[in-house]
């Protein structure tokens, strides 16, 4: 070091973790949400681009997707925000027992969602190979499914992690809180996709 | 990383390059040739139940599973209006080509022979209308319709109406030469 240090400020009293935007990982997760949000926005833009090629949407003779599975999925998704908010609150107050319980709930909700999602794929009434309409519908649903799977996997791992001695570490509560944040992203992005898959093909034919 | 590591990597790359993939190589040089029937395949040898098959024509190796040949064959299939009778393999006026049932043999040289010689009930002979290379390319493509070819040599679809499941997903149909009686 060429210059001699002059000790100006002691930082040893600073905390070692914090929630929300003070945390480093919050910025990482936010950046990934922006990236994935970018994917969704561009896929949706492609959807409208392809839609503009068609006279009607869904193009005949294809029927618009069946509503049941998708709507059930949407309702379950919306309902999941209740335990999700609870988990966020519990993490912010370092309530380990509650976090552990709610993580089980969230994992269970994920399994239910997968069942609905499987029926959704089955109720699209079009194959991805049929035409561009089918391709983009499948792309949207597939893309969103990858997000549900990712966050579900993350929740599962967190649930295991919080049952180990690591659960005692306050920093892990930041992880839980950020997982809850990501889940919000997953269901928020679903809402426009739900409209695009299930409702727009009904309105434009 | 040691220099030994590097040199062995280099050696590996060299070996790979030498035995490299020419399954995608475009064969641009036509071979001057005379009148051609794929030699080993004539109606006598391909008709079911008449004994052992002769060994595969050596020329087949250059076409079977060759991505460029299959692609050329796909275009010729449309250009020569094969789809007019066979459609996209599903059959119509002509027999289905995607079901693995072969009256005259499903090997590439047997298919080539069928194209060159023509077959009863409407399949015209293409002898002299197509070059030998084109016949082989067509035969290579026809083989893909029933999933007989490695999936990494075919493409999922062509830029045309979607009328068959993607070829990359086509199940390999077992070759069965003897269903002709039922048809």
């Amino acid at each position: 070091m060429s210059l001699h240090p002059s000790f100006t400020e002691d930082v040893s009293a600073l905390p070692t973790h914090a929630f929300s935007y003070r945390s480093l990982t919050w910025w990482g997760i936010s950046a990934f949400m922006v990236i994935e949000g970018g994917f969704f926005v561009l896929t949706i833009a492609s959807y409208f681009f392809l839609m503009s090629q068609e006279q009607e949407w869904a193009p005949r003779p294809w029927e618009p997707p069946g509503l049941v599975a998708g709507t059930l999925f949407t309702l379950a998704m919306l309902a999941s925000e209740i335990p999700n908010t609870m988990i966020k609150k519990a993490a912010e107050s370092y309530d380990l027992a509650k976090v552990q319980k709610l993580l089980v709930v969230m994992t269970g909700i994920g399994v239910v969602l997968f069942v609905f999602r499987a029926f959704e794929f089955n109720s699209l009434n079009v194959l991805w190979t049929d035409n561009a309409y089918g391709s983009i519908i499948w792309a949207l649903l597939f893309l969103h499914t990858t997000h549900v799977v990712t966050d579900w996997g993350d929740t599962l791992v967190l649930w295991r992690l919080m049952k180990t001695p690591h659960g005692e570490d306050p920093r892990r509560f930041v992880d839980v809180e950020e997982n809850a944040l990501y889940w919000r992203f997953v269901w928020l992005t679903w809402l426009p996709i739900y409209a695009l898959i299930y409702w727009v093909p009904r309105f434009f034919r | 990383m040691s220099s030994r590591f590097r040199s062995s990597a280099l050696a590996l790359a060299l070996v790979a390059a030498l035995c490299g993939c020419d399954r995608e190589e475009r064969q641009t040089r036509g071979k001057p040739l005379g009148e051609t029937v794929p030699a080993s395949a004539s109606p006598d040898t391909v008709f079911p139940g008449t004994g052992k098959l002769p060994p595969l024509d050596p020329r087949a190796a250059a076409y079977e599973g060759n991505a460029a040949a299959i692609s050329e064959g796909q275009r010729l299939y449309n250009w020569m209006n094969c789809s007019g009778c066979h459609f996209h393999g599903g059959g119509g006026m002509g027999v289905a080509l995607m079901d693995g049932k072969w009256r005259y043999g499903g090997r590439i040289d047997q298919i080539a022979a069928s194209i060159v010689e023509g077959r009863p009930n409407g399949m015209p002979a293409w002898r002299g209308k197509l070059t030998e290379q084109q016949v082989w390319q067509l035969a290579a493509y026809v083989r893909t319709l029933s999933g007989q070819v490695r999936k990494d040599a075919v493409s999922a679809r062509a830029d045309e109406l979607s009328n068959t499941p993607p070829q990359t997903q086509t199940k390999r149909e077992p070759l069965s030469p003897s269903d002709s009686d039922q048809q």
Partner: protein
Amino acid sequence: MTPAERAKQPPAKVPRDGPDLTGPELHEKLEATWENPPGFIGWLSSVDHKDIGRRYIVTALVFLALAGALAIAMRLQLSKPDNDLIGAARYNEIFTMHGTTMMFLFAVPVMQGMQVYLTPLMLGTRNTAFPRLNAFSYWMYLAGGALLWVAFVLNIGPDMGWFAYPPLSGPQYGVGKRVDMWAQMITFTEVAALAAAVSLVATILKQKAPGMGLARMPIFVWATLVTSLMVIFSMPSVALASGMLLSDRLVGTQFYNPVERGDALLWQHLFWFFGHPEVYIIFLPATGFVSEIVATFSRRTIVGYPIVVMSLVATGILAFGLWVHHMFATGLPRIGYSFYTAASMSVSIPTGLQIFCWIATLWEGRPRLQVPLLYVIGFIFTFVIGGLTGVMIAAVPLDLQLHDTYFIVAHFHYVLIGGAVFPLLGAITYWYPKATGRLMSDRLGKISFWMIFLGFQLAFFPMHIAGINGMPRRVYTYPAGMGLELPNLLSTIGSLVVAVAVLLFVINLVVSLRSGRKAEPNPWDAASLEWATSCAPPKYNFPHLPIVDSRTPLWDAGEKLPVVHGLRVEDREVLLTTVMSAKPDLREPSAEPSPWPFIAALATSAMFISSIFSPWAVVFGTVPVAVALTAWFWPKSPKPEREPVIS
């Protein structure tokens, strides 16, 4: 103790840097904490931004050499009309590999490598925000590059151009696995670039030295921030486009099939929505280099710091509105032509302002004509030509003629080589002592500069004329008698001169590593924080983290550099500061070395590559990826919070 109580605990009594622990004793402890584990596994496990940055740069330079060799091959083929040195199919593979390698495997990664290396040093912190993500990013980049080049060597390399327009790249006309290799390489490099960008953004926003508010960041850091954000906003576009292309080719979707109501132009929109910002992702870091070099070698702060910063930001935003100017010839509505023209031209305003600021800095300062500054001067002379031809092709009536001719080839080589590679070579010369502890040879540096500069003009200026004389791009041969012989021959000669010059530059790099003059911590008498630590920096970058109260801390500090103290020395710890004004906020642990990023990259590569052959790989391949990621993020065994109190 419940976690809630634990969170409110006073700081543990563990060894911390400060007046009591400084000098060699501190060095020893920090070195032990921050060094890599031993052996090859340790080498694979490194999460040090300096290691990763260096690997990025060296790998990118290897790809530069490979793609440069392809360029020479193309120039030899085009040296005379109707040449038959290289056949049509091979030539198409070569130009595809040249463009793809230069754009995806050289230009963007080398800039990100420089950013990963320099940013934490300039910010006065110990490592990037997500060191393991950074390591993962490098391995993905390496795997993607290796995939492409192994494919090329095995004769299944791409042959449809770096822009891969369907239907030519689609399932019917893009025969075999060539396009799949290309498209999957895109996925690799996108993942790598995005990972590096995320890490850089978080580093810049959260790990600035105390006092280094946004308005005090070095301009290079600003450029890094803007380009990283551009990566984040633009790269999903090409990843989506190539994902759709792959699914068209492999599972039979119809995105680009016009017969089934898909559209080939969808690709072009998505590709250029990425492709145009891509140019600025390459160019803006170069303006950062230029700003740093100009200031140091003029021995004054840059004139108009806010103007330069605003220009960076404006360029970054405008870049997303210009993609249509790559598609003028596709038959867009004529009504919009003048709008596109004006929008495309407007991007030259911020660039013009930056050039003004650099020249004004030289004017106001006392320029030292050393090699880095020579490259900057060469950059301005060259880049401005490229910028002005860019103004020409922004005009629709001109572009409809000039588009896809050698005029464009000349234009973007002026912009990319003149605008990005010249500053890069200057930057390498400038920061070489920081990375290696030795200075590069000045004499050899000057020789190679002049050869590169003059050779470049000889190679690329005649291409303008070839284009105007009617030579389209991407042709493997051209007929005699159209006025193309002389420009092409001159270009070939020029390219050989450049090749020799680059070779000299590389020789200089290698020789100076052993025999260059030893560098003081601040050999150029520069102002920014990276020069506050030794050359080469220790693993932990700074013994004590510096405090900043101006844009030129080392020029204003006097004899003593103000620092903070109180960070742990036996655990990896970084100081987080607030986003805008950089007040100390948190001490967060920084990731330890780990082989898991490497293993995760291997697992991801296996999934990506096998998905070219079977879509089921996407399903089954996620299992090892998930395992690797879990191991990566699993925290290390909790240590007892209380450690022996040091006296």
